[in-house]
């Protein structure tokens, strides 16, 4: 069966510091991968999605970036965090066919102080 795992689960970082959140999917090949952010415990905002290695689409301009160095690995990064980057970050995957369900990881709580 397929599993998705992201880490770290919680992170407290000072303003201006770098960020790296990692996500891996097991049990499937060539998945679509997504990063979402949920601010203030509510609505989900799509940040990035990827349909293949090295293929990243950005939905919202910001100081975050994403990379997909391997088929089942998705990384969310920032060179300098802002206070407004605080939130709950969710990695997700779906089978690379239209109409398939998206499944989420456990989430990572980021607090920028």
């Amino acid at each position: 069966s397929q599993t998705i795992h992201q880490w770290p689960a919680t992170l407290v970082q000072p303003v201006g510091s770098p960020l790296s959140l990692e996500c891996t999917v097991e049990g499937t090949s060539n998945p679509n991968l997504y990063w979402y952010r949920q601010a203030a415990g509510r609505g989900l905002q799509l940040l990035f999605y990827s349909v293949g290695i090295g293929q990243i689409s950005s939905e919202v301009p910001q100081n975050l970036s994403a990379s997909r160095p391997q088929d089942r690995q998705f990384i969310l990064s920032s060179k300098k965090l802002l206070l407004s980057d605080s939130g709950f970050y969710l990695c997700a995957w779906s089978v690379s066919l239209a109409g398939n369900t998206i499944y989420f990881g456990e989430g990572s709580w980021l607090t920028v102080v």
Partner: protein
Amino acid sequence: AQKVTQAQTEISVVEKEDVTLDCVYETRDTTYYLFWYKQPPSGELVFLIRRNSFDEQNEISGRYSWNFQKSTSSFNFTITASQVVDSAVYFCALLEPFNKFYFGSGTKLNVKP
């Protein structure tokens, strides 16, 4: 414009009451998919149901039921005989072609004993 609207920000019910969570969507595509996810306090989003645009049959799964009506672009979710464990934030989502997911802002359900 919002692709998915969940007008109810928060609902509180007493255990054993029935409750309906509303979801209205907007799309020009004839092929699309609708989803409901549950987000308990732990944070992880749990997939509940997926429906495609060509299947308007209502679905029942235990205490959960879903009413899909294309005429009103709605996909409402009813919990019968609610329980405290149903307390969570519930998200409705729309998937259009090319795997772009749109989430509503969520409805927080509080079930009191």
